[in-house]
Structures are given as structure tokens and as C-alpha cells.
């Protein structure tokens, strides 16, 4: 019979990402109420790393040349095979570029219910309940899933990563029949920076239309972000004006972010921008207009010219850290 929680681990070259520890911590807590154990699956590496130390009793691995770069059909087949082998009651995966793509496909293949981007999870009466933002975070909806397993993708930074509990995992290599990938990756274009993805970033510094040029983004926002290892972001107005790339856009038609610190420089705080960053734990707003709506949502606000504040702030961060 299906039981327990399976955590999908994303990794870089075999090293689990922060989301893996967040989800293992949550899985342990849920399993305590639900019964059953915690296991993990790693696709594209045969390393169980330290996942056992964080509570995984078994680590299923699917490795080989087909899994080195992400491919929709290879990953769909891999996870489907692991679900057959592991028979979990619940699956938790980080909401990510990859899971956005292959999880719905797995759900359709196996007729499973899937809840995307949940930010809360609890277990009661032997089942898991989730909460997820809808209408760009203007409302929350409670969800449950009537299939076994139940699939959840979890927004990064929703749960803290706990301490290691000590333990070791049994590694189980799962072999998967080869699939023909009808979508072939012919080239990977790496971004020039090596900062965390906006959706996973713990700190973000964003600039608005007020930056006035791409050069100013590079001279003001990028170094300020770098001074606290933050990922740079932008408003749509800044992106549409060509000051920052599309991949930097935060908001309803950009990325939804969930950092512990979000610094908005010269951003008015339009409802569509707030939609993307309202769950940030601490919001700092720098704007020269005291009436700017962003201040209604800020934890700390400074009414000044950003071109004066940002270089000073960068200096103060450099001294403080």
C-alpha cells in the first residue's frame, strides 16, 4: 500500500539545492502526523549526498546521459518509474523551471491531482492539506488531493530548512526505459551572472523605470545587489524600456519571488508588481515620492533619491557584512 512522502531533490552537479533541505524538513513534520517514512528522489545524479542526514530513509536515483540536461520526456518517464517503485502517498517538489514543465505531464500520465506552488502544508486526519496563492497572491485557496499519490510543488523559501537529524539513507538506483525526446535541447545559453534564480533567491534588489538606463542598472542596482549576494530584479516598466532583461521582471507577468529581503529602488508599487513580491518577509522601499503606494507594503521606507541612497547603502552593507 502507498505510504510516506517522497521529496524530489533538485541539485547542481549532485549537490542538493537549498529547496531539498526545506522540503525534507517539512516532509518529516508531515510524516509525523501522517505515518509512513520520508524518501527522496534524485534525477540526473547517482549521489545520495547528505540527504539521509536530513531524514530521507531511502534515496531513489535515476542517472545516465539522458538526464544530464533537463528533458521533458526523460524526466516524466523517470519520475513515473520512481512513483511505481516507491509507492508514496504524497510527493513534494520545489516549484521550479523544471517541475513547472514535467509535473503536469506526470500528473496527466498517471491521472494524479497536482497542486502548484503551495506555500503552506499541513497534515490532519491522515491526509495532507495545502494552501496556495491564487489571483497573484490576492487570495489563498485551501486544497486537498483525491489521488494516490498526491503531487505538490512548493514555492521555494516557504519553509525553513531544519538541522540535520543524523541518519543514513539506503540508495536505490532505478532503471528507466529509454525514451525518445521529441523536444531536443540544441543549445544551453548560460546567463552571464551566477547569482541564484529570482524565484529561489533569499535576497533581491530591484530597480524601476526611475533608473532611466541600462547603464544605471549596471552601475547602481547590480553592485548593490552583489554587496549582499542578492539577485537583481526589475519592474516591468524598466524591462519594457530595455533597461533590464525580461528574466529579471518581478510581478504578475514576471517572476513571483519569496525572499527574506526585497529592496525596491524607485519602484512605485503597482498592483501587478506587488503581485510578484508581496510575500517577501522584509520589504525595503526607496522612493523619492512619499505618496508612492509601495510604502504601504514596505517594512522599512526611505523617502530619498535612489541615486544618493543606493551607493551609500552599498558602502554600509560592505562595512556591515
Amino acid at each position, binding site marked *: 500500500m502507498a505510504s510516506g512522502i517522497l521529496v524530489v531533490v533538485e541539485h547542481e552537479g549532485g549537490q542538493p539545492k537549498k529547496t531539498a533541505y526545506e522540503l525534507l524538513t517539512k516532509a518529516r513534520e508531515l510524516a509525523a502526523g501522517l505515518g509512513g517514512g520520508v524518501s527522496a528522489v534524485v534525477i540526473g545524479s547517482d549521489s545520495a549526498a547528505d540527504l539521509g542526514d536530513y531524514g530521507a530513509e531511502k534515496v531513489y536515483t535515476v542517472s545516465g546521459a539522458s538526464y544530464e*540536461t533537463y528533458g521533458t520526456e526523460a524526466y516524466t518517464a523517470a519520475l513515473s518509474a520512481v512513483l511505481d517503485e516507491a509507492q508514496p502517498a504524497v510527493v513534494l517538489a520545489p516549484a521550479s523551471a523544471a517541475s513547472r514543465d514535467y509535473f*503536469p*505531464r506526470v500528473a496527466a500520465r498517471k491521472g494524479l491531482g497536482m497542486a502548484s506552488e503551495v506555500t503552506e502544508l499541513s497534515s490532519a486526519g491522515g491526509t495532507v492539506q495545502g494552501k496556495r496563492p491564487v489571483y497573484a497572491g490576492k*487570495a489563498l485557496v485551501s*486544497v486537498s488531493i483525491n489521488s494516490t499519490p498526491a503531487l505538490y510543488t512548493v514555492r521555494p523559501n516557504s519553509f525553513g530548512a531544519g538541522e540535520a537529524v543524523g541518519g543514513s539513507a539506503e540508495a536505490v538506483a532505478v532503471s528507466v526505459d529509454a525514451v525518445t525526446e521529441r523536444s531536443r535541447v540544441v543549445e544551453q545559453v548560460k546567463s552571464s551572472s551566477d547569482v541564484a534564480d529570482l524565484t529561489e533567491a533569499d535576497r533581491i534588489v530591484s530597480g524601476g523605470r526611475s533608473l532611466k538606463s541600462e547603464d544605471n542598472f549596471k552601475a547602481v542596482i547590480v553592485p548593490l545587489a552583489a554587496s*549582499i549576494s542578492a539577485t537583481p530584479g526589475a519592474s516591468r516598466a524598466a524591462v519594457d524600456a530595455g533597461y533590464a532583461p525580461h528574466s529579471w521582471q518581478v510581478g504578475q507577468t514576471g517572476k513571483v519571488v519569496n525572499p527574506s529581503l526585497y529592496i525596491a529602488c524607485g519602484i512605485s508599487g503597482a498592483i501587478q508588481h506587488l503581485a510578484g513580491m508581496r510575500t517577501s*518577509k522584509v520589504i525595503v522601499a526607496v522612493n523619492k515620492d512619499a505618496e508612492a503606494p509601495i510604502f504601504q507594503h514596505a517594512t522599512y521606507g526611505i523617502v530619498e533619491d535612489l541615486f544618493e541612497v543606493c551607493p551609500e547603502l552599498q558602502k554600509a552593507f560592505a562595512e556591515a557584512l
Partner: protein
Amino acid sequence: MKIGVCLKQVPATDTRIKINAEGTGIVTDEVKWEVNPYDEFALEAALLLKEAGKASEVVILTVGGSDCEQRIKDGLARGADSAIRMDDASFAGSDALGIARVLAAAATKAEVGLVLCGKQAIDGDSSQVPGMMAELLDWAQVTDISSLELDGETVTTHRAAGAGNKAVIETKLPAVLSCDKGLNTPRFASLRGIMMAKRKKIEVWGAADLGLNDADVGGTAAVLVEQGMSQPPARPAGRMIDGGSVGEKVNELVRLLREEAKVL
């Protein structure tokens, strides 16, 4: 080749969302409805392919009630050739998988060779329908695309692969593609387009036309169950840092981030 564009009606992005008294959904009385912004990118991409002579026809596919017709007409006015609205009492309460089953059946019946969707409907924000459709059709898929070129049976797309990285992907048709911002700039309807749209047909297909039943669609088939809506928790009131020079304000901010908020 015919292209199907999946188009959904959603509340405008600047809508103030109010939750109804029962806590089951939103108050829709004052909502201004629009075409889902990501579906506008999908429609524009389809129209550009047709104008480039790479597609013969663009058909809009919508699952929804007659209140969606205004949005469908908007799409027709921008240049789509025809539209099919899938509507049936038995569709009520469908989850994403149910909607995907309806759209996949419609794509098959309409004989389209390429389906373009938005990457996400900005009401439910779930990003599930395109991938589910592709699986149900047993077609290839590429989600979240920001560039698209079609050459014969091969489509080349760019997909956001996380951390600002991009994958360049070649796909053999048929396929389902979901469209992200950056793909193109959607056109507005012209006056002539609006006049021409009046003569374009919106067909309505029900469950029987699509060979679907209770096991496929509606509340009984749904595996994802919504149990009520609530307001997000209010943010605690913030604090303005005033008084003193820019330097003093900045130092106070850094102190607060360290000692009070503990995020440094």
C-alpha cells in the same frame, strides 16, 4: 496547418479581489474581464505564423460559459479565423486535468497541428493545462517559451531554464507550446478587424461532441479539490525611516535589518 490557440477569460490584472461571503470564490460583480495576458502572446504568435504563410488557419479554443464570448470576439477581431467554445453543464467543477481533457479532445476534433497556450492563467495561477494537454494528446511540449520559429515540421523555441539561463529547443510537430512574456508584442484589434469579427463564427461543443463523460470531467472526476478561499494575512505596518542625512538614514536602515528584522 491549423493552429489552435487556447484562450481563457480572467479578471484584469488591476482587479481588487474580494472573497465572497461563503468563502468559496471571488465576488465577480465588479470584475473587469480580459483575455489572459499570456494567451495574448499565444494568439499573436499564431497570427504571425499565419501571416508568414506557415499556417493556414488560427482557431481559438475556449472552455467557458457564454460570458466568455466577448473575449473570444476580441481574439477574432485581432485576426483569428474562427473559434470554438466548449461548454457543458457537466464541465462544472473540473480541475486542470478535466479542462485539459476537454481542450485535448477539442484540438483533436478540430484537427489542429500545433496548440499555443499561455504559460499560466492568472486567475488560478497553476500552469498545468498545457503540459497535461500535451501528454493526453501524446504530443511534444515546450513550456514558458520566449522565442519561436517554425521551419517545416520543426519548431525552434527558447525556454527559460532557471537562473536566467535559456535552453534552445528543437521540436518536431505536433506540439503544445506555452507562451511567456517577451515572445512578441500583442497587437490591438483594428476597426476593420472588429467589423470582420462580427461575421466570424463561434461554434459551441458539448461533452457529447467531444466524447467525454463524468469520468473525465466535472466535479466527480476532479482529483484536485478546492476547499475554500481566504484573504492573505495582512502585512504588519511598516516604518518610515526619517530624520537626518541620507547617510544617517542608511545607517539606521542597516541597523534595523540586522538587529530587528535579522535578515543580514
